[in-house]
């Protein structure tokens, strides 16, 4: 009973936060000074009919309160306006951009999780030795590097070997499936590697910290006293209990990673959601900006919720 109670409470809180995000998004873009910002119907080179339709849809000539109401209604219907840059609906632009970003982010995150867990475990296991020192220092070093700078370093290293820009080779007309896959793999390698390297450092530290905490528990001492081998202790007890903070912190990070990867996408000209935000800013494409910002905020809330629920599921202490 208590479990369902908790889940419901978290979901309600998440929804509330989303609502606040939606409201603040509205305020940020409609109430900011300058008529250019509020006049979302000013789609360049659009027909007067299009402009009128948008004006009517979003009630841009009505009072702010009415606008807000209409804004919520349109949001419900998935209408985020029309992009200034290519006169396409913002929602479809965002969808394409998101689809482009996700594979790159996922591969990078998986790499970071794997490498981070590995090095974190090693560091905790070999605590007090040079291995730990090296592991932690390397993790900290990568964690401290500016993301875009690291990307540029990789470009220097791999120039000529791997493509350094774009998602695929646009000049390939009707490529075979294997060629296409190889092409995509080549292009996704460096951006996801950059993302992975920057992320893994923090994961190493988190995993190590969680492991150390668990390794200090009494039942570990007991297991040791009973004569279990270190490996078994690690696997069966320590790691499993360390999974909790690890999993939740990873879920949290995901929310923020999707919130851009702006720097990586700018370095590698990756046509994803980070680039979309950046291009929208340069081109003063306000409908896109508003839509993208909302999407990013919602994604962070969503992943926070996932992290909370994960935590709840994995932590036996909460249910009672």
């Amino acid at each position, binding site marked *: 009973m208590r479990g369902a109670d908790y889940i419901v409470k978290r979901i309600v809180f998440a929804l509330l936060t989303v609502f606040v995000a939606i409201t603040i998004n509205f305020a940020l873009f409609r109430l900011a000074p300058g008529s250019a910002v509020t006049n979302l119907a000013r789609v360049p080179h659009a027909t007067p009919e299009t402009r009128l339709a948008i004006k009517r849809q979003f009630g841009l000539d009505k009072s702010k309160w009415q606008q807000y109401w209409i804004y919520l209604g349109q949001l419900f219907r998935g209408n985020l306006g029309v992009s200034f840059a290519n006169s396409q609906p913002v929602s479809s632009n965002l969808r394409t951009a998101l689809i482009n970003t996700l594979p790159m982010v996922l591969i990078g995150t998986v790499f970071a999780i794997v490498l981070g867990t590995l090095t974190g475990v090693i560091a905790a296991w070999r605590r007090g030795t040079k291995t730990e020192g090296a592991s932690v220092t390397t993790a900290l070093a990568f964690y401290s590097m500016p993301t875009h*700078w690291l990307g540029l370093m990789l470009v220097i290293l791999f120039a000529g070997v791997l493509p350094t820009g774009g998602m695929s080779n646009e000049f390939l007309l009707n490529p075979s499936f294997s060629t296409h896959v190889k092409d995509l793999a080549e292009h996704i390698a460096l951006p996801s590697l950059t993302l992975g390297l920057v992320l893994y450092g923090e994961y190493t530290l988190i995993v190590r*910290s969680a492991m150390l*905490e668990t390794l200090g528990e009494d039942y*570990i001492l007991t297991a040791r006293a009973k004569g279990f081998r270190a490996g078994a202790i690690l696997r069966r007890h320590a790691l499993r209990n360390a999974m909790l903070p690890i999993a939740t912190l990873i879920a949290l990070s995901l929310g923020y990673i999707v919130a851009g990867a702006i*720097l990586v996408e700018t370095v590698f000209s990756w046509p994803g959601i980070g680039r979309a*935000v950046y291009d929208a800013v340069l081109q003063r494409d306000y409908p896109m900006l508003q839509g*993208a910002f909302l999407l*990013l905020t919602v994604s962070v809330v969503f992943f926070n919720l996932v992290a909370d629920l994960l935590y709840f599921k994995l932590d036996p202490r909460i249910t009672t």
Partner: protein
Amino acid sequence: MSVVLQEPAALDDAVPVRSRRGIVWETVKRRPSALVGAGLLALVIVGAVLAPVLAPYDLHEQVGPVFGRPSWSHPLGLDDGGIDMVTLLMWGARISLVVGFAATFVSMVIGGAIGVTAGYFGGKVDTILMRITDYFLVIPDVPLMIIVAAIWGPSLFHIVIVIGILLWTSTARVIRAQVKSVRERVYVKRARSLGASHMRVVLRHVLPQVAPLLIANTVLTIAVAIFDETALAFLGLSDPSRISLGKMIENAFQRAAISTGAWWAIVPPGVLVAVIILACSLLGGAIEDALNPRLRVAHLSARTFRLRPLVGRGPEAL
């Protein structure tokens, strides 16, 4: 409030910090890396502060060809304007550090004020303030920074404000937790019962206990602030009239430094930024660690230490 983003553990069983020397000693004793961090940071700060005096060449003077190679007179070569890289690094560090410190100061003031208020008064005030904090935690900061820099215009002042108003959340939460525990202590209760005003109690009794933690948090925040400034500069949104380390990277990138082979224009600024962030992380983490009361002993190894990562402000700035 999110259970996962746990409230930072309050230092209930901590030995009250009695003297400044005690804390420094504790820090260094436990984590020698703190010395490394402090040393590096001090070196960079000195170099940056003394830039007008120490810099070998003039900041705007072209002393050689575009992307001139490293040589004895120019150990790190020249940038895309023919300006000496070592000079640029010193002045660039100056701006980057100024932005970092200023933004951190803003966030410290806001976060500290909110944290103290929430922790001290508790109840409804606490709930409201924490809800606000939670919301700010959830805003994707780099996109917001980009938008604000674009709408307001990219000046140093705007950048500092923008970074500052996004970083205060972690400070607020850390301070709040600590204030909450301090408030319950005997000497605080006694002071209140003797009729001391809230202000007096906060200033005389709460703040000194909170200060060390605030310092640790500040150092860690500086790291993030400098990172954010670098990111904004790379995206072309920092003040174009000041050269910061981030701007140096952007300039080189814009002028095809990599494909021209002019690695010296792009590698050193990034290394310097990484060094500064690393130094701050080491130092801040070590101070935090020294304040940690819960001495964890791992049974599989001899030594003890623990690092508390900067939750909620690390990877999202990607």
